[in-house]
């Protein structure tokens, strides 16, 4: 297969086009500008449309409009812009419109900084906008995986009629790596989009809406959404377990941090410390079972994040009192070095030995 040398941002954009995405709406923000800048050239080649909107609010509602036509559509942004999109994300989740949203996280809160971060985990996985809804959240760790997951993201969105978020960070977005694209067509068994707005010719009128003034109808709609989330949890959890079979200490990390953790694990094993890694690839649905299963077999779990402790809450939820869950995080745009992780693990093993 042909290998291309690309940034994570470009790989995501190319993968989206290959997945059949023909519409892109966005607003410039670092560190994801390579996505719109790629799309503006690439989409016209395949008869698609690129549009720079006046704001993230407008761009997410342009996504709502294009998705309502049944088309494959994407938007991308970074943390402050994703905050602005939350209104539209809640409406898209409520109206059950499939689409893909990319967040290349940077340090927050507020305007924060432009360096990489993982501090939007809560926003991505627990809600962000109002109401009982969830995004499907994918967390790639390499440029190749970003391309592969983006190709799949559009199928997942169509299958569940749910917005899918690709949650990366500035490192993944800006880093260049070789990447090859699977020749992939939309899955054959995706549901037909009978709900799409196409003009009412030959059928009863369709309405894409989110208002349900009758509480019993609204409760029913919410229960239907929850059924969908349960189905995702049953069918779609993805997780990588790396050297966990004999591990005494397991690191829990996703995305960029998981890559750094792998280097740390190598260094630790050279020092005779048996460390492993559990890397959630789907952050929602979260691999609770994987953590619950390994917990009794390990002495400690160290969650490492580029935040001050967000995913760690899900790890603790999964593990309960089966083992101790510790945390190490850097934030504000600081990427932890593998040596720092080694030191943290050594501190924990020293306590274990005592």
């Amino acid at each position, binding site marked *: 297969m042909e290998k291309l040398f690309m940034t994570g941002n470009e790989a995501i954009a190319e993968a989206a086009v290959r997945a059949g995405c*023909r*519409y892109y*709406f966005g607003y410039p923000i670092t560190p994801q500008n390579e996505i719109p800048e790629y799309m503006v050239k690439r989409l016209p080649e395949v008869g698609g*449309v690129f*549009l720079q*909107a*006046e*704001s993230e*609010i*407008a*761009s997410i*509602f*342009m*996504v*709502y*409009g*294009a*998705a*309502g*036509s049944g*088309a494959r*559509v994407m938007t991308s942004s970074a943390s402050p812009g994703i905050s602005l999109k939350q*209104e*539209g994300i809640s*409406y898209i989740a409520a109206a059950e419109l499939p689409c893909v949203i990319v967040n290349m996280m940077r340090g927050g809160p507020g305007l924060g900084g432009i360096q990489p971060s993982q501090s939007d985990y809560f926003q991505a996985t627990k809600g962000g906008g109002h109401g009982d809804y969830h995004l499907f959240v994918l967390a790639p760790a390499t440029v190749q995986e970003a391309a592969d997951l983006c190709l799949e993201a559009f199928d997942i969105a169509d299958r569940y009629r749910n917005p899918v978020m690709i949650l990366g960070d500035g490192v993944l977005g800006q880093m260049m790596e070789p990447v090859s694209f699977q020749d992939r067509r939309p899955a054959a068994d995706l549901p037909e989009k009978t709900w799409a*707005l*196409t*003009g*009412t*010719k*030959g059928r009863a*009128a*369709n*309405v*894409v*809406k*989110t*208002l349900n003034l009758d509480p019993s109808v609204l409760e029913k709609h919410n229960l239907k959404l929850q059924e969908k989330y349960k189905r995702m949890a049953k069918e779609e959890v993805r997780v990588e377990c790396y050297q966990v079979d004999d591990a005494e200490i397991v690191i829990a990390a996703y995305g960029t941090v998981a890559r750094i953790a792998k280097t740390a694990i190598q260094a630790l094993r050279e020092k005779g410390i048996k460390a492993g890694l559990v890397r959630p690839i789907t952050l929602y649905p979260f691999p609770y079972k994987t953590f619950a299963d390994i917990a009794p077999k390990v002495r400690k779990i160290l969650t490492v994040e580029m935040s001050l402790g967000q995913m760690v809450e899900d790890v603790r939820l999964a593990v309960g009192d089966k083992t101790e869950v510790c945390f190490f995080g850097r934030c504000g745009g600081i990427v932890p070095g593998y040596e720092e992780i080694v030191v943290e693990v050594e501190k924990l093993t020293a306590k274990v030995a005592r």
Partner: protein
Amino acid sequence: MNTEAQEMERIFERPRALRSATTHYCPGCGHGITHRLVAEVIDELGIRETIVGVAPVGCSVLMYNYFDIDMFEASHGRAPAIATGFKRARPDLPVFTYQGDGDLAAIGIAETIHAAARGEKFTTIFINNATYGMTGGQMAPTTLVGQKTATSPTGRNCETAGYPIKVCEMLATLDAPSYIARVSVSSAKHVLKAKQAISKAFQLQLKGFPYTFVEVLSPCPTDWHMTPQEAVEWLEENMFPQYPLGEVKAPKEGV
């Protein structure tokens, strides 16, 4: 049985684009009249089976229960962005947004101006009733100076609340829009003119003209605390001077 009624020619009926439904609009409200005008135009242009509408958040949020066409329900103010996304994906279908003055001129003014500036090829029907109808008659960007509302109980004070926005005139400063007109549904004469403007806007869109916009001065007797008759009189007396009727911008060649 051959009754007289069956032999009579039908000269007035519900437009096909409207459903047989009882609306929730108050007596004397301009929304119902404007709905009918839009529906008649849809019928006359033969676009009921192709058109896609975008309902706002406001008193007309449930308009998809009254129109028998494909529709979106927007969030408050975002109808122009939704219409943009849809029309870019389906440039072959006619598209319109229907929005109140809070929706269009307050929370959604950015989406409105930019859709107009880009010359998006959809039509906007803008209901200016100088108040927030749905939430109980608060001050809108179009509320007149001195007009009493729930949030300007002693009358809109321009020192603290500024001046009403003349949306047509503001949009007319942009190069892209092809048609901008202000009409009223306060009397039979004005209703007929309103329909002409709405029809022209849709016809221009069908011919591929960019952004078409019709502002409809519309009574809200309930939140103005008036009878329907008082409301239309108040509208003509107070809103006409502030919001002059007519075409503010139209293509030279016309329809």
